[in-house]
């Protein structure tokens, strides 16, 4: 134990790289603001807002997925993840920052003057028969209060779970203390799981994303969004684990742990497909116009290519490339797949937000906007995540060395 490299030092190149990515993000944001955001036409301006809405919500939900990883493994009394658990903990430190950004964007969209994206928030929606009867749920007050509670709750409980993990770094636990410690962890993880069920697994995707199509609804939507963000969160954890391994850290994490992460990415890609298809098939089968309207621009309109690309990247690629045991244990393959999966689910969020949010003001039709600024802003968020996570990793020991389950992780074998 004495020879472990416990202290992560943020390399200069890592720092520079994250700052460059953030600069790209800010630059893209400014360019998009100048070309679209300043326009007096609210549909042109919506192009700018849609981009930051999609990016901030996606990356917030991905980093929040890392808190869910901590909570889920804690609740299941899992031990295998203990050798790299500081990685999801560090990524979870991004939640308050990304939550702040997403919160500002969301509240600005609801309370600002531009209601092209959240049509239900505009004054004329009060007389819209399709939205009127949803007002008990879909109203500005509830949206704002619930959004703030959600973001604060995630940040606070994430912080709580991280503190629980780091506070025992310098005090070895006796057996009795260990039992109490595990119990304590379980209780807080359970509290988080309840909040998670009330937010990500139900109301939050309805509020933040589904209400863009305020007339349309799908009960599957939240789980589908959750699956997207969760599989991306697992990929993000994998990327950081591989990065740290390549730099000589995390000696206790072996191919066995990587194999399990690979299995998770594989399994939840299938899970995502299952939910995606369940949502699609029921709507396709019933063929009711008010429901199929959602798939009109996506499947038969300008988003057709993205729609099928989404399915190829997020289903076929993980299915075929991660099926073999050897590919889940290979650093190169798993890194490539993790990057691909994160991009794929970013694209998935893109086709959730864009088709209804953007509209050509002349033809009144949706169109696929030039994706470059969106990718640029996305890279900015990646840079922000890298920056905050690097700092959080360097703040504490990389190994939760006094955790009672650490040994289970060291001898872990698939």
């Amino acid at each position: 134990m004495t020879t472990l490299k416990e202290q992560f030092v943020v390399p200069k190149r890592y720092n520079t790289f994250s700052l460059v990515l953030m600069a790209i993000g800010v630059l893209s944001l400014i360019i998009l603001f100048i070309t679209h955001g300043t326009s007096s036409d609210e549909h042109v301006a919506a192009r700018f807002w849609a981009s930051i809405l999609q990016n901030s919500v996606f990356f917030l939900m991905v980093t929040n997925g890392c808190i869910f990883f901590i909570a889920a493994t804690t609740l299941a009394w899992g031990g295998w993840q203990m050798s790299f658990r500081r990685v999801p903990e560090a990524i979870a430190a991004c939640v308050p920052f990304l939550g702040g950004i997403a919160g500002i964007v969301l509240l600005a969209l609801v309370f600002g003057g531009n209601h092209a994206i959240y049509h239900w928030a505009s004054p004329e929606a009060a007389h819209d028969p399709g939205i009127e009867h949803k007002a008990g749920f879909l109203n500005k007050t509830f949206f704002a209060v619930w959004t703030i509670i959600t973001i604060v709750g995630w940040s606070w409980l994430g912080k709580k779970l991280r503190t629980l993990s780091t506070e025992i770094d310098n005090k070895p636990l006796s057996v009795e203390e260990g039992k109490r410690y595990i119990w304590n962890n379980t209780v807080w993880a359970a509290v988080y799981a309840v909040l998670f069920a009330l937010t990500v697994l139900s109301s939050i995707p309805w509020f933040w994303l589904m209400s863009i199509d305020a007339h349309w609804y799908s009960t599957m939507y939240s789980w589908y969004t959750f699956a997207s963000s969760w599989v991306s969160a697992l990929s993000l954890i994998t990327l950081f684990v591989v990065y740290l391994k390549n730099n000589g850290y995390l000696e206790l994490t072996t191919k066995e742990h990587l194999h399990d992460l690979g299995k998770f990415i594989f399994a939840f890609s299938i899970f995502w497909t299952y939910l995606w298809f369940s949502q699609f098939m029921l709507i396709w089968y019933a063929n009711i116009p008010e429901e199929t309207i959602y798939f009109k621009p996506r499947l038969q309109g300008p988003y057709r290519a993205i729609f099928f690309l989404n399915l190829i990247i997020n289903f076929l690629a993980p299915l075929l490339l991660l099926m073999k045991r050897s590919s889940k244990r290979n650093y190169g393959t798993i890194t490539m797949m993790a990057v691909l999966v994160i991009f794929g689910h970013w694209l998935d969020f893109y086709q959730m937000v864009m088709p209804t949010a953007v509209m050509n003001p002349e033809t009144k039709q949706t169109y696929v906007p030039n994706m470059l600024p969106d990718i640029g802003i996305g890279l900015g968020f990646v840079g922000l995540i890298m920056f905050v996570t690097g700092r959080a990793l360097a703040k504490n020991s990389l190994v939760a060395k006094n955790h009672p389950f650490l040994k289970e992780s060291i001898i872990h074998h698939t």
Partner: protein
Amino acid sequence: MAVKKFVVACFDDEKTLFPAVKNVRKTGYKIHDVYTPMPIHGLDAAMGLRDTSLHTAGFIYGITGTTTAFSFITWALTYDWPLNIGGKPYFSLPAWIPIMFELTVLFSAVGMVLTFCYLCQLAPFVKKDHFHLRATDDLFVMAVECTEKTNDSEVSDFLRNLGAIEVSTQYKETGWWIGRYDKDTEIFGKPVEPVVQS
């Protein structure tokens, strides 16, 4: 399939079994098999067994199932008996995907079970010789195969030194037969001493 001579060692702990397996392999004796009451992590690797190909077989059965479902439904619903169901096109893939999925699972599951039984020579009424009855209860039993060059008393001493609590030399049929244990066992191989309860 033939009757062969084995030196059979019993261990009462996997902590002694693992070094014993490694030492026996290092010395060059041929391990016929190791029988344990429960699955033991890492024993396959210690014995030098290759990874199973069962999952490859499962994949092949799976895609066979997908193809079967897809081609049959396509034939039935577009060519043999086209039906207008809710105004959907005859070739309506989304509706078939659940069935394609189910047949994939069915084919790969049933196929893998049957392949597993074939590889392990398991079937109703198929019988095999046992080295030690307590292998299914609480003992870890290692069978070392003897060739004409093997000095079995030397092997026995070697295994005893490695921590075996019980070592015996047995003649056993390695193949399978159809019959009943209570009547047939003595036909195959030379009779062995009854199991001694320690």
